[in-house]
């Protein structure tokens, strides 16, 4: 299982993938807004999104677990 943890705090601007979605390496999974800047989080590998633990508009913190995916 690949865990995507947040590098910084901020607010969740957009979630582009949901549980069960197939993703390719480099696909944008979700976008945070930090200091008025969009910060996209990309999939590190091909695989399937298993769980998304954040929601749009939520204020999030550094090191928070955002998403889990299984590699292909």
């Amino acid at each position, binding site marked *: 299982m690949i865990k995507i943890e947040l*590098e*910084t705090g901020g607010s969740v601007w957009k979630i582009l993938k949901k549980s069960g979605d197939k993703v390719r390496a480099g696909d944008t999974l979700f976008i945070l*807004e930090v200091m*008025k800047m*969009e*910060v*996209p989080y990309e999939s590190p590998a091909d695989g399937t999104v298993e769980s998304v633990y954040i929601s749009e508009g939520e204020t999030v913190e550094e090191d928070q677990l955002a998403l889990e995916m299984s590699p292909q």
Partner: protein
Amino acid sequence: MSWKKETDEITERRQLARQQGGAEAIAKHHERGRLTVRERIDKLLDHQSFEEVGLAAGAASYDDGGKLRTFDPANFVLGFGKIDGRRVVVGGEDFTMRGGSPSPAGLRKSVYAEELAVQFKVPLIRLHEGSGGSVGGKGQTMPAPVNAPARFVSVAEAMATVPVATAALGAVAGLPAGRLVASHFSVMSKTTAQILTAGPAVVARAMGEQKTKEELGGWKVHTKNGTVDNGAEDEETCLKEIRRFLSFMPNNIYQLAPVIDSDDPVERAEEYLLNIVPNDRRKSFDMRQVIQAVCDQTSFFEIGAGYGRSQITGLARLNGQPVGVWANNCKFLAGAMTADGANKARRFMELCETFSLPIISLVDEPGFMIGSQAEKEATIRHGTSTVLTAAMTTVPWASVMVRRSFGVAQAAHYGPEGFVLAWPSAESGPLPVEGGVAVAFQREIAAAPDPEKRRLELEHELAAKQSPFPRAEAFGVHDLIDPRQTRLQLCLWVDRIQPLLPTLLGPSRFSIRP
């Protein structure tokens, strides 16, 4: 009559010294997945280049006839050696004896490492695995005299004179931990090392905190807080990183860093630079790709990627010339200068100043980090310290305004008499329009029929004024350039500054401390 008996004893003592803590202790050490200090030194240095110093130092016992009965070598291995043909001093604790806690002779050898490096003016490499003194220590007959030289003078002098690179390869605590961080580059093994001011037993006794060594001082803790610069997968990768770091460095402050022949054409213009900075100012980009495009291919060696992550620092080459590279990372807190980012950048400038390395600055600075956490971290003080450090540097600077350049913090990215280029995407001013408009036009926005629409209009108007063209018209930058020409422009600059570099040699106006 000859000295055969004595020379045989020398041979025997040398054999005993090379046995370290004995076959059993070495086997146990290997079982834990760790190399011995002698294996580490062999892997670090050029083949068979180790010239050991003090192999005869240790504790001996004799029988009634005065014949050698036992010999425990000093548990710090020290000597000269070569890396890529250049001489260095190397040393490290021997964990197979007393767990690396210094024996009397081991301590003498370990503190001699700095003195040797300063005396011979060659880089110093310390490979650490050990702890400090022990209250139950044997063999300490009496404390050092009052007129003994202060122990850390040589440590500080080494940092001001020669490159010092260190690795944590096992548990490192107490004095070795202090010496580990007294370095220009430090790296720890993710699989075998922990760095501890004090270990779990002492912490439990003093603080009531129950933590493992890894929880207290593993790589996840110390690559993020800046205790060490880099984390590497294993011991061998640590040693490779040290070799790589030294490849950019001169032997000492009296020499220039080695320039190599580069087969990367100075005219190489990467097309992707034309599009890398998004037109939408909310969108981030990968500054490391800019660094790769501009510097000699594969030459960038990042230092401290896990710490102060809004700033990127590292060494690289431009047409073979070693340079320090400092850039903002807008993917982390928009690239704002945090307290730890400021400290990272300050220390990096000090490294470049100490060893006369030109600085390339790729600027995308929105300003000091703001908010309650930033205030708690004394960001303005740490940040201003960085600004003033830049102002005091004497090395040549080339700064490229890639995107944003705002506030007091931006001043840290431009050295005195620096060469300044701007990309078309550059924007600069006292503060970014988003924050500035909200404050300066607060009443006008609130009074507007559609405040949000008015705010966006004002932001748009003012953003146009922050464009680099008026700045270039006022000769506020040396030139406006096509981003694809950045490498060529910087390589030409590197050629122009060659006559300046020899004038910088010797002690700098300020040095570097951990």
